[in-house]
């Protein structure tokens, strides 16, 4: 596709569904998900690429969807928070967030869930410092992060069949 008009047709795989859709070229991916596809679980917090509310998975990498044009999703495989649970049942990751009180207002939660899910690929349980480093692209103003770190540690332990190394608070 080399054509240049102010609307472009794109095809993508979104949460297991393949769709074709015409989009305005200036629309960012977060608006596309929310307004065009009705996937309002992905939130918008700054449109400056700082807060991370709009974090989604594109081709198995987490990205900020406000810094991505909808047209750049053409041919991509996209996962949003709506695809996380298993039917009516919360996934292990979601259960861990619930158990550890890793959310309060819940506005940032989809962003953290996306990053947490991507950490599976490390193939091991990250240290708490590594987890904090990895999630520092999403801003939470409610929890103070502790519950989120614990939930991710717990979840990775479950996924990789090992209990998280317990760290005694300093």
């Amino acid at each position, binding site marked *: 596709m080399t054509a240049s008009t102010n609307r472009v047709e794109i095809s993508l795989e979104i949460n297991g569904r393949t769709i074709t859709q015409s989009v305005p070229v200036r629309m960012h991916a977060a608006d596309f998900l929310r307004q065009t596809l009705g996937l*309002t679980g992905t939130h918008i917090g700054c449109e*400056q690429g700082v807060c991370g509310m709009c974090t989604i998975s594109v081709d198995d990498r987490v990205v900020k969807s406000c810094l991505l044009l909808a047209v750049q999703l053409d041919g991509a495989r996209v996962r949003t928070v709506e695809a996380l649970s298993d039917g009516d049942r919360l996934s292990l990751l979601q259960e861990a967030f*619930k158990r550890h009180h890793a959310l309060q207002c819940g506005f940032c939660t989809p962003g953290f869930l996306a990053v947490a899910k991507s950490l599976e690929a490390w193939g091991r349980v990250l240290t708490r410092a590594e987890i904090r*480093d990895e999630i520092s692209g999403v801003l939470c103003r*409610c929890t103070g992060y502790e519950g989120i770190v614990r939930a991710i540690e717990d979840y990775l332990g479950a996924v990789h069949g090992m209990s998280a190394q317990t760290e005694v608070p*300093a």
Partner: protein
Amino acid sequence: MNFQVTAGVDMPADTDRAIIGRSVPRKEDDRLLRGGGLFADDVTLAHQLEMAVARCPFPHARILRVDTTAAEALPGVVQVLDGRRVAELSEPLTVLRPVPGAPSLPYYALARDRATHEGQPVVSVVAVTRAIAEDALELIEIEYEPIPHVTDMTATLEPDAPVLHPDVLESNLMASNVDRAGEPEAQRDAAHAVLADRFVVNRVAPLPMETRGIVVSWRSGARALDVRSSTQVPHLVRKQLAESLRLDESSIRVVASDVGGAYGLKLGAFPEDILACLHAMLLERPVKWIEDRMEYFRASTHGREAFHDMMIAADKDGRITSIMNEYTTDIGGWNSPFGSSQLSSVTFTGPYRVADAQVKRNVVLTNKTPVGAYRGYGQPEVNFAREVLLDRLARRLNKSPLEMRRLNMLRPEDLPWTTPSRAIYDNGDYLRTLEMAATAVDYERHWAASRKPRGDGRIVGIGLSSFVERTGYASARFLANRGSQFGAHESVTLRVNRSGGVDLYTGVSTFGQGSETAFAQICAQVLGIDYDFVRVHAGDTGASPLNTGAFASRTLIAAAGALKEAAEAIRDKVLVIAAMALEAETDALEIRDMAVCLKADQGRSISFKDIFNRAITGQGIPEGIAPGLEATAHFEPRSASFSFGTAAAVVAVDPATGDFEIERFVMVHDCGVPVNPLLVEGQVRGALVQGLGAALDEELRYDPETGQLMNGSMMDYFAPMASDVPPIELLHTEVPSDVTPFGVRGVGEVGTIPPAAALTNAVCDALVDFGVEISQMPLTPERIWRAIRAGAAS
């Protein structure tokens, strides 16, 4: 945290099935974890338009000319409003918590002839998309004449400062109030040691991750305005919208479904709310406005900015004999729904036994974004001043700051204690929190040691910070004396349903505080129904009884009483119906497993579902008993309750750069009986990190020349990320309050209070040999480096 389930006052006896005090998972979580929350921007209505707002770029300017011709001609643009039109169509915004003694300053949704702060709305546009509305903003020609401005809080009271509201005020001093007791001046003059300093508190942004937002539709035939708003106070927004839009309250329904963080910011109606409503009413089409982050920093209310001139006097043993505090808060260019912080006056003497004291509060106007409520509302500010000055005084007297606090702290037997500003502290044990914090960081040993650099060149310091926090309001009478437009009560409606469950209706919206969960726990406990069978419907003025709203750490204190009363009324009627069905006296019955059974024969029972159906249909209930099973209760607690505690910070300072690591942060805290320990921990940790952010890095700064905000973007405002947060250790005590239902105390704001003083005291302790004194927040490495240089120079 290790909480023990402790029965407070009025706790039902059946503790083995008690759900109050248990860390049950939250009601709110499932939907939020699935992306199924319903935030304002998640609502899209058919034929909806979107609004964007042109804002004044100057701190103070005359508006000479507004030309919207080109914008109106842009395809996709539907309507443009300017200040003149808005003044014809609406009344000024109203204030919920006026500054006592201040004149009202009418504030229209759009500026007409003059704007008094950067970010003030000047023109509003609605278009088919937000992008087109923003395109239109670029086509609007507004001719401004910048006029002299003042952004500095001291300069604003100088005789040559431009007066912001000359029609109603002769200067930029909006009001002053004094509270005092005893003879503070005489005690000061007779004291062995007197210290005083000015403590400067930074202007910060509450920064909810969801910005403000509103979606409005108007059906003129029905005279029905349907509002979806991201607010903490839907019933109060309804009141304010009615006043500004010249509508009856009965024409307005406000729904706040999920709210993405609030922290005091989302208290009341803002100009954009009025504008969105006006457009929707004029066009008879739904209008959405979602604040973007650049607007947020200039148009949403800021928090905190103040300076405190604090004086503490002591005798030679270190006993405090007088505290005097004159403080000045900046309200910005105009009044906001809640105005600048008021609670410094209430807790200025902290947890100490001081009978002779005075506090004076001045409120000033400057050409900056208005200040509103923010988590703590004056209590973090005054705590910083008092606790830092107290450490300095202790050092002056060659006493340890721990010993100084120990000596002066109110003892349990001193309580209740009426403070010099006539607040009444309820029961508590302040000293215990101090001792626990001191023990946790081994304070005594550290104090005796020298402040030599470690192997890595850093010097370790420890700081303490004790506090008392008012949670809830003293009474509606107290509020009436201050002109507040709301009460001190909370309310709830409980209504049973045919599925055997209870629907709980509350005007308290859900913004992360966990009220759906805590309310359901109390309802379940009192009624004896399973927690899973209580469904909470929050924040809809069309469904909930009139209430106050969620702020001031007051929700649970008041709502617990309403929940108890309503649930007891339901329970009583359930028992009456069951007694008839089981042919027994109500005394012979007990509630167990979603049913009522005979105490003597648990096999004979009738299910809740059966009882509820009987009540709903009126079939099978005793003669003379009205059908239906529903109760509404309003409850005002008899007094405010005071949380308390002590924080201790351990820091390691690099004296070459001023950089420091927070190696430990210990918080000892008492919020009475925790309804849900998990929620309590979440509230304390979350507020602590906001307090740490404001103490360490967050600060909205204005250019002294241009008067414009220098760092109004997410990139330049340093809110803490996960890696910025030091390890936090929570310890807690549990003294049930004797003035609230179930012995609860408020918990939402407490964490914001102690961090700034604890950290400042720790840094000053580490650098005591350098003569470092710090009286200003935030505590940046550069500020410390400058203090080291100043200490070396003197």
